């Protein structure tokens, strides 16, 4: 319990650090939400400066940060100039979509990677394993965005799958949702899969080559039991740590894929906010992704803590 409390404290500190850095970087970046209006020249300079001071953009950085912190405490996470409202509800609306996509893809990728990786490690050096290795290398070298575009093109050409969005107009059934999920989940899963399989394969191979696995084999332990009962639990440690990282890395991939397939998650919101220089929303999404990453790692560390009694830090 004390371990969890300490980890939570670390996480809060990390979030605070990320928010401070984000503020500093936003200050260094040129322009703000009103720069575009200014460039168009239709709004007078006086009006613009009035708007800026009305929205507090002319205040010094530390003060703006303090105001932002207060709004975080109220659950508002700042004020979006583009949406003319607090950021909190905007994020809350988009988070479930992104979570659904990332958790589903991560889960699916791991479900596939574990058996394939173990199988591949058990058949190291045979033809099938070589074929698998080559296909993984090819898959690894295809960018996710290209994969998404190819799948979308196929979907549009054939009409088998919807080419974007989360629901068909008027349709809200589970089947409809799954049909919309198919492309983004496939892209994200295939993107993560080669990395995971390689890690599972090497972790299992390493554990299989260790002296205790050899000793177990010498005792005539059947191959299946050897792999599942002896080797896999030992190979699991590095994989559990990877689980946390995979959640975080998938999130960043997900933001891009969401934009491409028009998935109503954080991705499109983030992109729009960047183009509009709607800083509060950008910061909100950054904070959410950081929290995802922290949560993923925390879950992984707790699993590791449970799985291996040697790791009691």
């Amino acid at each position: 319990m004390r371990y969890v409390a300490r980890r939570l404290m670390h996480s809060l500190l990390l979030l605070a650090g990320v928010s401070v850095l984000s503020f500093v970087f936003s200050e260094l970046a040129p322009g703000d939400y009103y720069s575009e209006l200014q460039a168009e020249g239709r709004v007078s300079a006086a009006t613009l400066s009035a708007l800026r001071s009305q929205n507090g953009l002319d205040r010094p950085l530390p003060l703006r940060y303090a105001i932002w912190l207060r709004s975080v405490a109220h659950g508002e996470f700042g004020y979006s100039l583009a949406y003319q409202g607090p950021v909190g509800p905007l994020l809350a609306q988009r988070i479930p979509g992104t979570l659904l996509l990332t958790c589903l893809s991560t889960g699916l990728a791991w479900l596939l990677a574990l058996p394939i990786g173990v199988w591949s490690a058990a058949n190291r050096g045979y033809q099938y394993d070589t074929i698998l290795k080559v296909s993984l290398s090819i898959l690894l070298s295809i960018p996710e965005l290209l994969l998404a575009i190819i799948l979308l093109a196929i979907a549009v050409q054939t009409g088998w799958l919807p080419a974007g969005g989360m629901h068909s107009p008027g349709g809200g059934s589970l089947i409809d949702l799954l049909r919309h999920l198919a492309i983004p989940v496939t892209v994200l899963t295939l993107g993560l899969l080669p990395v995971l399989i390689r890690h599972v394969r090497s972790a299992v191979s390493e554990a299989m080559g260790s002296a205790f696995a050899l000793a177990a084999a010498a005792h005539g332990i059947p191959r299946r039991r050897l792999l599942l009962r002896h080797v896999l639990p030992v190979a699991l440690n590095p994989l559990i740590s990877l689980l946390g990282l995979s959640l975080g890395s998938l999130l960043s991939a997900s933001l891009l894929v969401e934009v491409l397939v028009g998935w109503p998650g954080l991705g499109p919101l983030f992109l729009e906010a960047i183009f509009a220089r709607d800083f509060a929303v950008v910061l909100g999404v950054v904070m959410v992704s950081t929290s995802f990453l922290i949560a993923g790692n925390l879950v992984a560390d707790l699993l590791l803590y449970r799985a291996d009694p040697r790791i009691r830090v």
Partner: protein
Amino acid sequence: MGSDAVLTVRGLSKTYSQRRWWGGTVPGIRALHDINFTVARGRTLAVVGPSGSGKTTLARCLAGLEQPEAGEIQFAGAPVEIQLIFQQPAASLNPRFSAAEVVEEPLVIQRRGSKPERRDRAALALERVGLSRTILGRRSHQLSGGERQRLAIARALIVEPKLIVLDESLSGLDIRLQEHIARLLADLQSRLGISYILITHDLGLASRLAAEIAVLDGGHIVDCAPPADLESRSTHPATRELIAASKVLAV
């Protein structure tokens, strides 16, 4: 020896081949060539040789971890009654298993006995190697080096083996611990009538523990004699080199 032989090895040969990625194989190193020996019940045969002489390959063939390509291994018992104790017994313990699980695992896979029976036998095996029952719940990282060594021996003992192959199991231990384990092995031999094949590069150790010493060099057995006669009966330069080396070390 004759009918009293526990193990008879005739014409054993082993060549390691390399697997090609498309599935073919290319012949590689010839590790063992026409090996013949017998081990009598309750006796110890030492197999001594320099690195790369084929000692470990021999151990692995005897334990069934490698398939020899020629020759026969006649063993008076079930295959499981040959047990192998590794070069680093401590590393041969699964880090995620408790001492009880380590020792019971051979019984579990053979579906021998109920759970409480297995626990009793595990405790008995631990007792035989001088470990207390209280360590049953501990994992290997919570044990000392000597305890791990004994645990590995207990695991071999639990299936009531007729032959234990010790593959450099005593090397790399500090002298005092080596002495303890050697005494333990000798004690188990006299009480349970187990035969040992002691594989080592240490001729001194072999002379103290074994009734007979076979010298392995380049995959051939070049000399085989009781320790006292080895020097006078040796015919091969490899044997003389080993004797000379052990004398230097003894001084």
